[in-house]
C-alpha cells in the first residue's frame, strides 16, 4: 500500500498499523503450531520414555536407547533397504516418464487428439489410493486381466499379490499409471514458453527434428526438471506409504515392507510408540538432508533451485 515505510519499521509500529492483517493470520498460525510444530516437538519421545495417557512429551530421558535399538534391528534394516530400492525405482522410472510423455504430446499436430490424451491421462491422479489399490487387486487377481493375458501367451496364472518377487513391479506400475499423466502438466506449460524463434534458428543451422528436441526443447525445460527432481528427491524416503499399506501382506512383506509401514506396525500395532518415533525421526532427518543437499547441488551445477 501507499503507506509503505522505507527502512526499519519496529514491531510495535507494524502491529499497530497492520493489526487487522496480522489478526487474519492468527488462526492459521495457531493451526501450524498445534498440528505441525507440536508433533515435531513430539519427536522428543524418541529420547524419552512415553507412557500411554501421559504427557505427549514423555516421562523421563532415556538418551539414545531407542536409536541404538533400531540400529541393531534386522527388520528395520530390511525395511530401510526396501525403502531405498522402491524409492530409487520410483525416481529412475516414474520421474523421467512425464518428460517423455510431454515431449511425445508436444509433437502431436491434432489439437483434439492431444486434448483427449491429456484429459484421459490426468484422470488417475484424482482417484483415491483405495480405488487404485482396488484396481491393482482386480487386475492382478487370478481371474483378472493380467492373468488373462498370461494365459493367452500360454503361461500359468500367477497369484501376483501373494508373491514377494512381484511386489515392486506392481507397485511401480501402479505409480506410473496414476502419476505420469498429471506429471506432464508443468512440462507442457514450460514447453509453451519456449521461443519458437529458437527452433527456427536451429533449423536454419541444419538441425533436424531430433536435434531440435535435444538442443532447444530439453534445455528449455531443464529448470522445471531440476525443481521437480529436487522435490522428488526430498520425498525419496516417503515412498507411497498409503498405497504400500493397502497392497502388502505378510507374504509380500520381505520386499514390500518400507520404513513407514514398519513404523506403523511397531508403533500402532505393537504399541512401542517411542521406538517407532525414533525410526520416524531418523526417516524425517534423512528426508530433510536429502532435499537440502539436492537443492545445494542443483544450485551449483545448474543454477536452478527451490530457494
Amino acid at each position: 500500500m501507499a503507506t509503505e515505510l522505507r527502512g526499519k519499521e519496529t514491531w510495535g509500529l507494524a502491529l499497530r498499523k497492520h493489526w487487522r492483517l496480522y489478526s487474519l493470520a492468527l488462526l492459521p498460525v495457531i493451526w501450524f503450531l498445534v498440528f505441525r510444530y507440536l508433533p515435531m516437538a513430539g519427536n522428543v519421545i524418541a529420547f524419552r520414555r512415553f507412557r500411554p495417557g501421559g504427557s505427549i512429551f514423555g516421562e523421563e530421558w532415556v538418551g539414545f536407547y531407542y536409536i541404538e535399538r533400531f540400529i541393531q534391528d534386522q527388520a528395520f534394516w530390511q525395511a530401510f533397504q526396501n525403502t531405498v530400492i522402491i524409492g530409487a525405482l520410483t525416481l529412475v522410472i516414474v520421474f523421467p516418464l512425464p518428460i517423455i510423455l510431454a515431449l511425445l504430446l508436444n509433437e502431436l499436430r491434432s489439437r483434439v487428439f492431444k486434448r483427449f490424451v491429456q484429459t484421459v491421462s490426468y484422470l488417475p491422479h484424482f482417484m483415491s489410493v483405495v480405488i487404485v489399490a482396488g484396481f491393482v487387486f482386480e487386475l492382478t487377481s487370478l481371474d483378472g486381466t493380467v492373468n488373462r493375458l498370461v494365459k493367452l501367451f500360454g503361461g500359468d496364472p500367477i497369484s501376483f499379490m501373494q508373491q514377494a518377487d512381484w511386489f515392486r513391479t506392481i507397485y511401480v506400475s501402479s505409480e506410473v499409471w496414476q502419476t505420469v499423466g498429471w506429471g506432464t502438466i508443468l512440462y507442457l506449460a514450460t514447453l509453451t514458453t519456449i521461443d519458437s524463434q529458437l527452433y527456427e534458428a536451429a533449423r536454419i543451422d541444419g538441425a533436424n527434428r531430433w536435434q531440435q528436441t535435444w538442443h532447444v526443447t530439453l534445455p528449455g525445460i531443464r529448470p522445471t526438471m531440476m525443481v521437480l527432481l529436487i522435490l522428488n528427491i526430498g520425498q525419496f524416503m516417503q515412498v507411497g506409504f498409503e498405497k504400500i499399506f493397502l497392497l502388502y501382506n505378510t507374504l509380500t512383506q520381505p520386499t514390500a515392507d518400507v520404513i513407514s509401514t514398519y513404523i506403523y506396525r511397531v508403533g500402532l500395532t505393537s504399541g512401542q510408540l517411542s521406538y517407532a518415533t525414533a525410526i520416524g525421526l531418523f526417516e524425517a532427518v534423512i528426508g530433510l538432508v536429502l532435499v537440502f543437499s539436492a537443492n545445494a547441488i542443483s544450485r551449483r551445477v545448474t543454477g536452478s533451485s527451490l530457494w
Partner: protein
Amino acid sequence: MVNTAPAPTTDVVGAETPDLSRPRPETTTVKDTPGYTVFRWVNTTILVLVAAVTLYPFLNLAARAFSSEAAIRSGDVTVWPIGFNTTTLMSVLEQDLFWRNYLNTVVYTVVGTAIAMALTTTFAYVLSKKYLKGRMILIGFAVFTMFFTGGLIPNYILVSQLGFKNTIWAVVVPQAINVFNLLVMKSFFENFPEELEEAAAIDGLTTYGIFFRVVLPLSKAVLATMVLFYAVWFWNSWFPAFLYMDDPEMYPVTVFLRNIIAGATGTGEGLSDVAVQIGANVKAVTMLLTALPIVCLYPFVQKYFVSGVMLGSVKG
C-alpha cells in the same frame, strides 16, 4: 473415436494464454523427412496405447460391476459385462452402512473444505502483502513443514490426546492447510491489482472489508480451483479415518471400501475362499460408486485443476 490421422502440416496459431493442448508451433513449412513421418505414426500409436491403458481399469471395473459372479470367476470379463445383472448394485445400495458412510464422506468433504478454505485464504492473503513486517518469517514457518514433519506417531498421540478420536475433527482438522495450495493462493493474491485495494481503502473499508468484500469476490476462479483441490483430497482421504475411528458408523466410504478390499484379498484377517468370491462383485460395485462422483465431475472441472497447477508453478 478420435482423430488419429496425421493433421495437416499448416502452421497453427495458438492463443497467448498457456493452452496446454495447443500443438507445438511449426517453425517451417518444409516437408517432413520420411523418418519423421514414421516417427509421427509410431508416436500416435504410442499415445493411443497410453490412453487405452489408462482407461482400461475403469472400463474393466464397470464391466465387472454388472457381470455375473460366474463370469468374473471364469476370468472372461474385460470391458463389457457378461451375464449382465444389477443384483449386486442393488444389494450394495440396500446396505444402511454403505449409505451412512457415503453420507459421512459428503459431510467430511464439505466441512473439511470449508475449514481448509477459511484458513488457507486468510493466511495466503496475509502472506501476499510484501510490505508486511515478518512476512518472510511466516512464509518460512509454513514452507518448512513441507520438508520436515512430526511423523506418524507424534501426530497420532496428539490427535488422540486432543480427544479427536471417533469424531469428524480427526479427519478434517489435522489436514486443513495444504502448503502447496497456500503458496498457489499467495502467488495469486500477489498479482491482485493493488489499485483496487487502494481505492477500497480510500472508500473507508478496513483490511477486513477489503479482503471479504473486494478481494474474495474478485477471486472466484482461483477459489473454485482451491475448493476442488481440497474437496477431492477430502473425498479420497481414508487413512486418518482408518487410524482414528473404530466406530463403523463414523467411517467415510473409502474406509468402507478398504475393508471390503482387505477382506476380499486377504490383506486383512480373513483369507477364506468365501470372502474372495463375495468380494469380486461387491468390491467392483463399491469401487464404482466411490469413484463415480469424481469421474462424472472431472471432465467439467479439469481446466480448473490444470490452471491451479500452473498458477502454483509461477512461483512456488
